[in-house]
């Protein structure tokens, strides 16, 4: 094999990964563009926390700082249950409340019941709130944007979720004892 042939063969080998890398770089930029466009759409429809999921909408609205409030039944009325409840497992399994309108996964509700033995067997309402800025009139405050009610029938939990004008419900078995 001549030296020219060797050089040419070597150059060919070098060209292939270079071309692949260019394709990879271009592809990644394209995916990034598509994701940002999707993220903008989700933010416009208020489906997600604008500060999360890599869409670069941080510092466009106040950080929502989503919180979970617990209400219990007093006759027909829901009354604030106070602050003695753990919501860590709920928050973690509910993807940090990033998806504003989505019903919580069953694991989130189970996590809440696991962490709060006192509410097992009792009707409970969870309310999710966030910091909101309205522009006209100019106002900053905390508003409830989603509720989840838990009702019991023996060892079956029925949940009803309401957010963004949408409702959903489901049930799962949970051993109270």
């Amino acid at each position, binding site marked *: 094999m001549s030296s020219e042939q060797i050089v040419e063969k070597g150059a060919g080998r070098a060209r292939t990964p*270079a071309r692949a*890398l*260019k394709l*990879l*770089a271009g592809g*990644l*930029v394209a995916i*990034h*563009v598509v994701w*940002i466009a999707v*993220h*903008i759409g989700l*933010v*416009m429809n208020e489906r997600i926390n*604008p*500060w*999360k*999921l*890599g*869409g*670069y*909408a*941080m*510092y*466009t*609205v*106040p950080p929502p700082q989503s919180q979970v409030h617990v209400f219990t039944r007093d006759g027909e009325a829901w009354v604030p249950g106070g602050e003695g409840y753990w919501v860590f497992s709920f928050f973690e399994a509910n*993807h*940090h409340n*990033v998806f504003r309108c989505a019903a919580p996964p069953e694991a989130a509700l189970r996590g809440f019941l696991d962490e709060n033995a006192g509410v097992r067997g009792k009707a409970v309402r969870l309310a999710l709130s966030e910091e909101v*800025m309205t*522009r*006209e*009139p*100019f106002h*900053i405050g905390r508003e409830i944007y989603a509720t989840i009610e838990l009702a019991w029938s023996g060892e079956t939990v029925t949940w009803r979720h309401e957010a963004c004008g949408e409702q959903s419900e489901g049930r799962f078995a949970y051993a109270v004892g």
Partner: protein
Amino acid sequence: MTSTADGMLHRAGLGEPVSAEEQTALHMRIAMAMAIISVPILKLHDTYANWDVGRYHLVAATLVFVVSAVLALFERTSRAGLVLFAVAIVAYVLEKWSAYHNHGWLSFWTITVAFLFGTRWWEDETYRWYLRMTLGVVMLGACAQKIVAGTYLDGSFLTYLSLHGSETEHMFGFLCSDLESGPCVAHQALGVFLMLWQAAVGLLLVAGVTNLWLLAVEIAFLLGAGLYADEMNFQVLNIALFCMAFGYGMPPRLAALCMLLLALDVVKISVIVSHVL
């Protein structure tokens, strides 16, 4: 410095550079190390929480970030450092994707793939192109998000920060006489200017402009934004990425300034200002 020490530094690729090319190569690796080290600084407070809840793999990943930053600095180990970074950040993303902050996502997009560009990644024009395009797209995306939110077009977000932001974010509060009643023309003008600047930089990056003056002005702008938002880690990441994308790298003096700012970020400027006032 003794000749033996000189020789060791040269072998590590950190000695006094002998040519402009070697100097640029060193500055590129410094920029990469600085970009990487900004990531664990952001996760410092999370690290305690991760330890408390038994996420030891994330604590380990945070330590791996630090090791990878050191390795990225040296010619021989730079690529190994980048591989370690990729492993650590993938561990973070898989575990915390829904809570992951935009700073983390930007480092994920830009640094994770760097090792694919060879042992001398800093010489690869495709990687620089990728960084420029990614930063440009991010700038334009952030500008589009501001337009959609409308809170920069009317200045209301700056008014919100002047009222409820950190101590440093109150600095433009004096521009409006009655913040409680809403944004004034000055905040609106500032909001529109910030949006236009972001759009202009994004377009210039996508167009492939790598002018040193543009880099210098953008670095000054990012430093100002970091001081305003009291969040230097993201700005250090941005500055380091810009330095690499433009192909100049980061000179040691700028790296020293960035390290100082990262140290300030751990304490927070607002805390210092509040303490002094």
